[in-house]
């Protein structure tokens, strides 16, 4: 049971990393990404394949995964640079599905739908399962802390301010002499890279990945984490991810008490519950638990218009 709780904390930490990545793209720069699970898959597969085939150290593998995911994100952003945002929604969703198709079919590279098993974990051989989970929790928390600090720095740096300006009105940004496109590209690749890193962390933790793991539902979970926590807010991303894992895992214990349903129906009820939660959060609490901070000490928040601007952020 302790191992279960620790492993849930690890998963929550990994979700929190993904939510941080999403926050850079979506929260700060207002770029929609319905295919972040594709970036996670790119990171996870890159790291798994590199560490398994070429026996490179795990940290390097995870870094490589993050770089590949960032590069793929950059390409996606380049292709869609002149398009309205709803095309970005379609393209990113299609991108994630295509990654899944490639992972299912390139058997020589990814072992197809059977997935890759036996991915190396740090010190796995020398530790008991309990110790291993604890060590990995430590690693994930360290990474999370590091990224959190980085994202906070980005958020308050000139880059972060430009990104928020791009989100609110990219015309104004262009008038101010900034190249809005290149900032969108930066945000998209940084965000994709962080999500790819989370994918790598996941692969080395569970030692097994398969295309079935990287379904659109996972994208919605991360999206929901950020929405619940507060879009545009790094603290919110972390809190939201913890909360979502609590709900997800909690529902695992509640569903078996519903009489007369099969396990498949139980799973359906959990997914139904999650999508309903997302719809409700999206509808009624668009600012999340911790709203984006208003960082000017003197100028007040623009009154009732805050609701409008925070909605525009989507």
């Amino acid at each position: 049971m302790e191992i279960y709780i620790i492993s849930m904390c690890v998963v929550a930490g990994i979700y929190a990393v993904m939510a941080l990545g999403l926050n850079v793209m979506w929260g700060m720069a207002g770029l929609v990404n319905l295919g972040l699970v594709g970036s996670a898959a790119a990171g996870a597969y890159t790291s798994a394949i590199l560490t398994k085939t070429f026996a490179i150290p795990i940290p390097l593998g995870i870094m490589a995964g993050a770089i590949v995911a960032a590069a793929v994100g950059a390409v996606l952003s380049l292709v869609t640079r002149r398009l309205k945002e709803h095309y970005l929604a379609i393209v990113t969703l299609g991108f994630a599905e295509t990654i899944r198709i490639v992972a299912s079919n390139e058997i020589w590279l990814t072992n197809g739908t059977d997935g890759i098993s036996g991915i190396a974990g740090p010190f796995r051989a020398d530790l008991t399962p309990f110790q291993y989970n604890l060590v990995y929790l430590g690693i994930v928390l360290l990474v999370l802390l590091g990224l959190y600090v980085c994202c906070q720095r980005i958020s308050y740096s000139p880059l972060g301010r430009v990104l928020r300006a791009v989100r609110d009105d990219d015309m104004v940004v262009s008038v101010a002499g900034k190249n809005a496109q290149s900032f969108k590209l930066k945000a998209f690749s940084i965000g994709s890279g962080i999500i790819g890193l989370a994918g790598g962390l996941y692969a080395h933790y569970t030692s097994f990945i398969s295309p079935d793991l990287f379904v659109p539902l996972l994208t919605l979970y991360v999206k929901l984490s950020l929405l619940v926590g507060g879009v545009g807010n790094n603290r919110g991303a972390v809190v939201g991810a913890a909360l979502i894992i609590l709900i997800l895992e909690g529902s695992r214990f509640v569903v078996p008490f519903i009489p007369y349903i099969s396990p498949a129906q139980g799973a359906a009820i959990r997914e139904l519950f999650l999508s309903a939660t997302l719809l409700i959060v999206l509808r009624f609490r668009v600012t999340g638990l911790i709203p984006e901070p208003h960082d000017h000490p003197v100028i007040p928040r623009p009154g009732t218009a805050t609701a409008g601007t925070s909605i525009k952020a989507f």
Partner: protein
Amino acid sequence: MNVLQLIANGIMAGSILAIPAIGLTAMYSVLRFPNFAIASHATVGAFAGWVANSVYGFSVLPSLAIALLISGLVGLLTDELILKPFRSAGVITTAIGSLALTIGLENVVRLFFGNDLRGYDLPLARDIIVGGIHLGPQQLNNLAVSIVVMALVFGFLFFTRMGKAMRAVADNPRLADIKGIDSRIVARIASFMGMGLAGLGGMLIGLDSSIDPLTGFRSMLPIFAAAVVGGLGSIPGAVAGALVIGIAEELSLLALPASYKSAVAFIAIMLILTLRPQGLFGREAN
């Protein structure tokens, strides 16, 4: 492999794909957001048709009508109750809402029917061979159904008052409003028609093989590709786009394994967005 055979298969597949693609593009032109809920409505239609066909013993044509009706009604209801309030919050919020809706509805279907593959009760029939090309009678029936439905849709849009009102709202919502067209009713009709066509398309796709709760989701990428390639919002574009995607998917079999069919749709989206973002028939730049 025979290229002509592949092209014939592609035309058949494309004509089926055109039905939900018209639905998607019609909804887009009136409601102005990419409605991902089209995937689950295709599944709902496929299962409604399956219940009518395999449980209550209706033949294929009435089952198709039931598929259209049920998924249209579900579409109307979910849009009215769930998606409509999102629209004031912007395109992307609505699109994310529709993605959540599609996963929710898909799981409602899973709750009642489970994950098993199901097939329709169809009379067995021998392939017709024309000039060395094999044509399945069921495929030909599907082609005929698609053509009739397309003709009805065009007739509705061009010759009826409501159809003209719908085109007016799509063209210029403000001007339509000034002329006294009630955009709420037009939106409802667009939802019913769009999702009805999605359900009909879902069942047509299922008639070719079998159905499960993911039927709609698997076809979502080709449906979007058809609409984007044709130009989102253009109905003749959706038909042309669907034929392009159908034929391209079949021709890809010459070079790629069959499981890569949906990747073709994605490549088509990327290509068209890079080369001609407004699509083959689109007027709207960007």
